[in-house]
């Protein structure tokens, strides 16, 4: 495969990526780098991975033609229903892959970070499935705003540890998970939930999520007699659902990729998480990428109404897609996202996660031709966000 947009052999996407980890993490990250492709390409791994995705996760997820939405916006709009995955979001595609790797590496203790709690739930789920100990780090603020997912993790047998430093959100939960890994290098596997972190994580997570775009191609072929849509739209926090939805289209330059970031209360309001607009190149969580920071190189606190997009960086793949202009980056405010969320609920009968609602807000901003095939990755369902929705709209 060409690697114009994908990772190179040194773990970089253009000038982004790499593994900027302290020596304490070097042996673990290096062992993973040496083995992730070999292990995940073994037929026995692939068989187990695919069987679990089919029978446990419920794949393939439907590619649904949204008739009313299509009429409203004047294009052929398809929704990739990742919200129908077991546990309610795309996150489980990746945790299934990583837990199988962890088992083959002989690890017995699993740690994870979580923002909205979807990755935490997906990790707790696969740990229960495999009988492994699970500890999830979650920002104290997110524990408050995503209470249903905290309860689910606990019911699944995971321990949820509050991150109380910094803004007490996803960035800080990730710091705590990394510190845990530094302190437990022998028995612990760190299941990162997005296409962030040191190489090989961004590539590994993108590969496990790439099932999304592989299915889109196959399903479009059945429905439209063509493999490639005109547009693929996905929201980006760290960027795992977007990486999965874009993956098989990266080198198909005719497919327009749209990455939707959280503008919070407005890109320049001081309360935003729109990294591509506000970030500069820097190092966060072991990766060189675009990053929201002060002039002095201190990482700044992001803000978004959606916990899953509340992150001051983006995965190095996305930084590269932004820099090369392969993907268009659009920032959507809290307000626009919330309105798109309730509109989807009342047009198609689907309540999306607030993260996902950001992707739908793009429909109001883009002009499409009637024959355009637009695929929106419906990355997660909104059950966890009912409180935020009902309070916001006073329902």
């Amino acid at each position: 495969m060409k690697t114009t947009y994908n990772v190179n052999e040194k773990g970089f996407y253009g000038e982004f990526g790499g593994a900027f980890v302290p020596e304490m993490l070097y042996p673990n990250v290096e062992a993973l780098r040496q083995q992730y492709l070999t292990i995940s390409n073994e037929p026995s791994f692939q068989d187990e991975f695919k069987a679990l995705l089919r029978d446990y996760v419920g794949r393939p997820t439907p590619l649904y033609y949204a008739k009313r939405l299509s009429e409203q916006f004047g294009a052929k709009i398809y929704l990739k229903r990742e919200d129908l995955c077991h546990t309610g979001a795309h996150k489980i595609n990746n945790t299934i892959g990583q837990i199988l790797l962890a088992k083959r590496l002989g690890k017995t203790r699993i740690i994870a970070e979580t923002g909205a709690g979807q990755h935490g739930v997906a990790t707790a789920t696969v740990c229960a499935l495999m009988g492994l100990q699970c500890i999830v780090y979650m920002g104290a603020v997110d524990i408050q705003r995503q209470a249903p997912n905290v309860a689910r993790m606990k019911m699944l047998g995971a321990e949820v540890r509050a991150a109380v430093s910094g803004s007490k959100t996803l960035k800080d939960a990730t710091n705590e998970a990394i510190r845990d890994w530094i302190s437990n290098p022998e028995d612990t596997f760190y299941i990162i939930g997005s296409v962030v972190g040191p190489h090989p994580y961004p590539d590994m997570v993108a590969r496990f999520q790439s099932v999304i775009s592989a299915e889109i191609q196959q399903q479009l072929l059945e429905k439209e007699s063509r493999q490639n849509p005109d547009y693929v739209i996905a929201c980006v926090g760290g960027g795992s659902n977007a990486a999965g939805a874009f993956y098989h289209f990266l080198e198909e330059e005719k497919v327009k990729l749209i990455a939707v970031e959280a503008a919070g209360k407005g890109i320049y309001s001081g309360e935003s998480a729109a990294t591509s607009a506000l970030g500069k190149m820097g190092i966060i969580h072991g990766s060189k990428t675009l990053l929201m920071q002060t002039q002095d190189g201190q990482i700044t606190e992001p803000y978004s109404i959606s916990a899953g997009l509340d992150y001051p960086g983006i995965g190095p793949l996305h930084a590269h897609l932004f820099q090369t202009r392969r993907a268009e980056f659009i920032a959507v405010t809290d307000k626009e996202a919330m309105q798109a969320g309730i509109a989807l609920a009342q047009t198609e009968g689907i309540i999306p996660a607030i993260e996902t609602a950001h992707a739908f807000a793009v429909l109001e901003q883009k002009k499409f031709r009637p024959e355009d095939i637009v695929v929106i990755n419906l990355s997660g369902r909104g059950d966890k966000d009912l409180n935020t929705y009902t309070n916001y709209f006073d329902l």
Partner: protein
Amino acid sequence: MNRIQQQLSAKNKILSIYFTVGFTKLNDTKSLIEELARNKVDVIEIGLPFSDPLADGPTIQSSSMQALQNGMTTTLLFEQLKDIRNTVDIPLIIMGYFNPMLQFGIENFLKACRQTGIDGLIIPDLPLEIYLSDYKKLFDSYGIQMIFLITPQTSEERIRLIDDNSNAFIYMVSSAGVTGSKDQFEENQLQFFERIARMNLKNQQLIGFGISNKITFQQAIKYQKGAIIGSSFIQFISKNKISDIKNFINNIL
């Protein structure tokens, strides 16, 4: 021999102290360094605060937060250190994370180190491979020493590679974990110290992470040239005056 090597070969044991600049007060830097040097400290590690210090435990995390809230910046640090070589002649090392240095500009940072008389850098999240391929030449051209960490999990082959590429000392992380204090070292840690001592490395080693008192310091210098104290000094300075530093040092030596 550079200043770090001279100091390490001149003394039979080395006490190195780490502190976070800008903590507890923004402009304590110069008087802290002078007071440490006056009180038999052999090497000083000047901690440049970072918002997200991945390798640090709660004590250094909170001192870093406080320092940033006080207004500490890289530019200010070099201003504070401008005349430090008029009064202090022991080795001075800056320990900091890579991102603030990257934003300052690596070459600018090295230039400022040379101008102020900084001898070396410890950058926990700049890995050996990237240092060698991208930065070593630049460090060498400014005469700034890079100091690498090793841990009980670091392979012998990698330790040799680090030794070959160091001209100061090797920073031994006493156990798997982030920075913080311990009352005494355990058997497996002492075995690690002994194993490294027997490797006959070209560079001396200093032990850090977990040194807090006379017992841990004595355990460390039984095997290595010396030790680095960070968290426990930060805790001390948060409750005591700079003029009390001699009490802290007397409790260690």
